[in-house]
């Protein structure tokens, strides 16, 4: 902006010399200039303020539509009723794959008939169990199609807690509103509540950067211990893609061309 103003001034000054115009003319121009400068700054600030409001406040509101879960499920209550914590319902199948959100078959084990007086349970039994319909749960942690994530590797091999990625949903008494991204169709929980992408807890976001963040830490630990396994290489690869500057050792070849580099998670 300042460049523009200076340029205008120069032109005006030049004109004054050549024509040797009266003081009054110059004064008028200077006055106008001062007033115009203020307006310009004002408009600049206005424009900036408006777009900041749009970007930070209105855009996130427009981007997400709010959806209610079909049944308001009480995790906290159910955890007290089962023996095996989260894994009672969100279990590993015999072949090692993760079952995710329970299917009606599992719910029916207890809820073949109405157990209590909770309106949500009555709705569940009447609308779904007795009609044999699956509940169309909205899944907060659903990743894009063809993203492959092995729960077994993280929970069984690396002994991670559910909470690390999923937060304290197991202690919630009701399900929060599902905010669906209108463009991608995924939950707001993937990008995170903060539109700026800030996070306080590990479970606040579930983007690839967040995978990398943890893997970077783990890989640093392993590096310290001096162990090199194929898994470490993979971790290096991921970190290398996300933040190429983070790794101390620079590899000879590009990670993108490394065998299976991307395809471990992106099938």
């Amino acid at each position, binding site marked *: 902006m300042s460049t523009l103003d200076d340029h205008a001034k120069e032109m005006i000054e030049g004109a004054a010399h050549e024509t040797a115009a009266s003081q009054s003319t110059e004064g008028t121009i200077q006055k106008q200039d001062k007033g115009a400068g203020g*307006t*310009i700054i004002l*408009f*600049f600030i206005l424009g*900036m303020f408006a777009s900041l409001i*749009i970007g930070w406040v209105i855009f996130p509101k427009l981007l997400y539509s709010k959806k209610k879960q079909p049944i308001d499920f009480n995790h906290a209550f159910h955890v007290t009723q089962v023996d095996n914590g989260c894994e009672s319902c969100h279990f590993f*199948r015999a072949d090692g794959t993760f079952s995710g959100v329970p299917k009606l078959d599992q719910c029916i084990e207890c809820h073949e008939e109405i157990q209590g007086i909770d309106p949500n349970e009555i709705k569940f039994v009447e609308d779904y169990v007795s009609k044999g319909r699956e509940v169309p749960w909205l899944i907060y942690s659903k990743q894009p199609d063809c993203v492959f994530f092995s729960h077994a590797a993280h929970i069984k091999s690396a002994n991670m807690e559910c909470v690390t990625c999923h937060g304290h949903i197991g202690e919630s008494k009701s399900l929060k509103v599902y905010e669906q991204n209108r463009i991608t169709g995924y939950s707001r929980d993937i990008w995170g509540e903060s539109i700026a*992408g800030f996070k306080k807890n590990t479970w606040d976001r579930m983007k690839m950067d967040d995978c990398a963040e943890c893997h970077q830490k783990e890989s640093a630990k392993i590096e310290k211990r001096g162990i090199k396994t194929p898994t470490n290489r993979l971790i290096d690869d991921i970190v290398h893609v996300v933040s190429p500057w983070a790794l101390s050792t620079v590899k000879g070849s590009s990670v993108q061309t490394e065998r299976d580099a991307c395809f471990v998670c992106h099938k």
Partner: protein
Amino acid sequence: MKIGRRGFLSFVIGGAAGTALSPLPWKLMDDTSIWTQMWPWTPVPEDGEASYVNSVCTLCPGRCGITVRKIEDRAVKIEGMRGNPVNNGGICLLGLSGLQLLYGPTRIKSPLKRTGKRGQGKWDRISWKEAVSMVVEKLGDLRSKGRAHTVGMISGSDRGTVPHLFERFLTAYGSPNFFRMPSVRDSYELTLHIMQGVQALPGFDFKNADFILSFGSGIIDGWGSPVRMMRNFSAWRNTGAKVIQIEPRLSNTAAKSNKWIPINPGTEGALAMGLAHVIIKESLYDNGFIADYANGFDEWKRLVIDKYDPDSVAAITGIDAGTIVALARSFANASNPLAICGRGDGTTPVGLSDCMAVHALNALAGSINNKGGIFAVSDLDYIHWPEIEMDAKAAVGMQHERLDGAGSRKYPNSRYLPNRLPEAILSETPYPLESLFIAGVNPLYTLMDTRPIEKAFEKIPFVVSFSSYMDETAQRADLILPNHIYLERYEDVPRPIGMLQPLISLAKPVVEPQLDTKHAGDVIIQMAKGLGGSLANSFPWESYYSCLKETLGEKWEIMVEKGFWSGSESMTKNLETSFDTVSGKFEFINPDSGSAVQYKPVAVEGDRKSYPLILIPYDSIRLAPNSFVGDPPFAIKTVDDSVLKHNDVFVEINPKTARVAGLREGELVLLSTPIGAGKVRIHLFEGIIPGIVALPRGLGHTGSDDYLDGKGINVNALIGPVQDPDSGMDAAWGIRAKISKV
């Protein structure tokens, strides 16, 4: 305050700066990139619980056990079943592609009634109730007029409960006209019947054979049970067994065998006789077997010594006499030699005399019902149903002779001769065919010379197809009652032809029926119930499922769990009781004709002058040659571009022949035979005898999908049938042909 140009610009610039400082562009960029990955046409694999269903593949006569991997309700992969006696984990290309036949767009979605002219492709969707009542009305009408015998049925098989239900229906209805599509099994059945007096299937002890003399059998090109044969072939590499391949063309089998002996097409029988000559002359035969268990050997010996010396045979077959002598010696001197016949994938019969000549070689080598040899195997007898209730109309109808002449005085031993049907239908002798039911076969594509068959179809007033696909035959039907495909239905599937071990596999619904189709077994039961009376009484079952479950009895549980029931191999057969001929011995003399086993040339159509070349068909495992389905998209994509390029099929021709005719590689030419003509491209191939040209089977389909339709030409439409005088079977092995430039 006035908003001037400068003010506006600064507002915009301020806006841009503010936007850049907000998350909007970065978030939008991220979301847009995710959005591009989620377009609805992007294929996404199912997610969910994996499960496996054991079943059996019935796309070809191979009968491999399959294990289908499912994610939730969707079948996602067909694998060979481990531990299955047929294929033990192996699977072929067609079997792998089965899911495209399940989920592909080419299936018939509901019962259809023809509205336009035959073959015009105009159909009305009708309900199953309407469809079945239409059939019942038509059949009831014919029966009441005393014309029950004019109803026929063509099936792919005559083994297992579904074909038995078809046959039972026809019998109770009053028609002898049940037909099975031809294959080399007909030749073998007849040979075993004439030479050993048994009604049995051939069973080969490939595991113990150490010298396999193959008269054109495409052991790894789809012959018999393809996956099983490939395994056998590999096993022979380890055991050191030798494979000698005799055929005019360097097939995959020939290329991988220990020795390929090119032979003039159609002269395999002569070679067998020539080999017998050397074996007998040099006394290399199994003396014990010939002395104790054979009848008519001396008479046959005189004939063989007299007529089939190596030089005469060399003149017929084009194989030099020295090779014949050496081959005969190594065959006879092997410890467990085995001679087999059936050209290509074995879905076409060979002349009876050829098959008998090959079988006689096995007798000379002592390989009949012996380790490493050929066994007469009786099919498992597990279908025990209450007696058919025959009313007067049924009894009268069954008195009529069969339309195809099988079992008549002319062809007393033949069981089914559907190749003779077109002639019988067109000439209306002995009577016209008024209705035809077709199940699991595509005769308008697979029978040779398709034009008279099409004409014959025009003459049949009421044609009903059970096809799940709009194949060439279904296109010309009046009514289509689409069957569930093999991945949607229950069915018992007896062991493949050639296998020794007793086995019944169970096809099980891997997924729910995807469309408005119905099990052909259920339709037959409903038809019988609709017709009422003795027919209804002969079909006491509520549904096909209950019929099957009841039939299999205690085997049911194990079959549902494992996918098959198997018994132990019973190979130790007593030769004393093996032969049920009049003499009680192995016959070298056909008791019906009184003539000894000999070579009878099968002369193919066309004169040498106008048609200087000979066209032979060949089979490739990548082309589902004579299956009732055409190649699914996965399979057709594997076909080499020296076989099929874009829409043109290549005819294989020896460079020498091509040079004389001035033909270049890839040139588009017109291949004509006395029967028909088609445009093909030239492929120069050293692996074919000069003067012979070869076309693959399995192309030139119509009514399939964009991947197969209009690709190449149907070689069956170029070859005319040649009736074997002894059996009535179609023994054509090729036809005279010419190539002209276009």
